[in-house]
């Protein structure tokens, strides 16, 4: 899966968590916490959705790597094997 597809998958997850938000114009380099007020409960959900949808495990110590959309893509692309 290429980085663009990974990005789409991550945005899909965020869109399902933050139902009332417009996620079409998320900035890649600004933290999701600042853009959408995502908190630790929401990040836990992103991790669980990754596991549920894509069988990707994110250990707790790697949570900070999910801070921005760009860092998500960088960290997750090698984990999406197809």
């Amino acid at each position: 899966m290429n980085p663009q597809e990974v990005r789409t998958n991550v945005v899909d997850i965020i869109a399902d968590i933050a139902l009332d938000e417009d996620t079409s114009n998320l900035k890649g380099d600004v933290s999701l916490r600042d853009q959408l007020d995502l908190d630790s409960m929401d990040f836990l959900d992103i991790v669980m959705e990754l596991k549920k949808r894509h069988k990707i495990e994110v250990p707790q110590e790697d949570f900070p790597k999910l801070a921005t959309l760009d860092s998500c893509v960088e960290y997750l692309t090698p984990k999406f094997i197809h």
Partner: protein
Amino acid sequence: MAEKYDCLIIGAGMSGLAAGIRLGMYGKKVCILEKHTIPGGLNSYYKRKSHLLDVGLHALTNFAPKGTRSGPLPKIFRQLRIPYDTFKLSPQVKSKIVFPEHELTFTNNIDDLISEVHQNFPHETDGFLKLIEKIKSHNALSLSDSYLSAKEVVGEYIKDSILKEMIFTPPLIYGSAWENDMDFSQFVIMFESLYLEGLSRPFGGVRTILSSLEEKIKKLGIEIRYRSGVKRIITQDNKAVGVELLNGEILKTDKILSSAGLPETMNMVKEETPTYLTGGLSFTESILILKDRPKTFGADSTLIFYNNDKIYKYQKPKTLVDFDSAVVCFPNNFEKDDLNEGVVRITNIANFKKWDDLDRKSYLIEKEKVYQNSLKLIKKLYPGFNHEVIYKDVFTPKTVKRFTGHLGGAVYGSPEKKKDGTTAFKDLYICGTDQGFLGIVGSMLSGISMANLHVLMGNK
């Protein structure tokens, strides 16, 4: 052999339903056990002679306008994947705290209350502003357990005892399991949810919330069993391993989340358990359906917190009911009136034991007296009220006990809370009222937090 569950949830109230949704979303094998035939527990509904009646919910606290991202209500919508518009929230008009010589009006804009305090108690304005700052900076959702007297903390900021009593009236009656005081963290939760965030009503009342939760549960394929009371929780080596239902059926499980209350849950474990205090605070409520809408006799407030004394006695009365104070709720008086008829609900503090001791005949007589007193109070508040009541019902502490299962009909449960949800038994956790988050929003958040912490994350 019976199949084993990942988690059994005791009670299909707000917290149990929310916990069930969280676990079902992530593929856990869950069963929600409810002894009644409908969900809701303390916050439920019924129908009599074509009138739809709500119990529990007067107003939803923690109002957040659409687009708000932080705070308890947006958190619940996100965690349960419920779109904001589902509840069709209609904000309150205004509410009043009425004492013999003072009235304070509050709205969903804290500036209104600040200016009311300034007009009525000018010397307290600074203290009140500082108290608000203190409350905003306090982390009330910390799961640590120590009790701090809210009256002592607030006393450092507010010197006028009447103002202090007035400010405490809504937080106490809307959530305290303690008499005349509450834990400071709980006070902070209530202050934020009532005064800083504010009140609203879901279109259609409590049914709208419950049906959106039920719909989620159905969609996720979560098992929910009604008429399924739990007879006992089965433990092995100090660990919960299953339950026996009242019909004798045994269900095995890895974990149990109980919303039945702390002493009530411990009573289900048939071995030696720590003992916890039973709460003493229960209520009566008169529900009146009127021919006319409350506006026609001048009632334009959403809620009135009435107290006929300088001191607000939030305690178990020595008599059946304490008529010195009451909460009067006008469900029609939200920005949008979604009801088909006029409704007034009057809540009084009551003594469970006294009601429980009455024989059938006296019970009915006393219920009628509660109703008559409710009429008197409306007349006192609104002399234009004309008594055209087309339907009435009164519930008592006995009704509360029947629908919540709380010992002593204690609406807000035990004065002892378990903020981290743990019990003396491994894999047995408390959620809901006795975990300690308050109100409808608090109880949903409680179910969500405990499911996340002990079941979803606990598996890692």
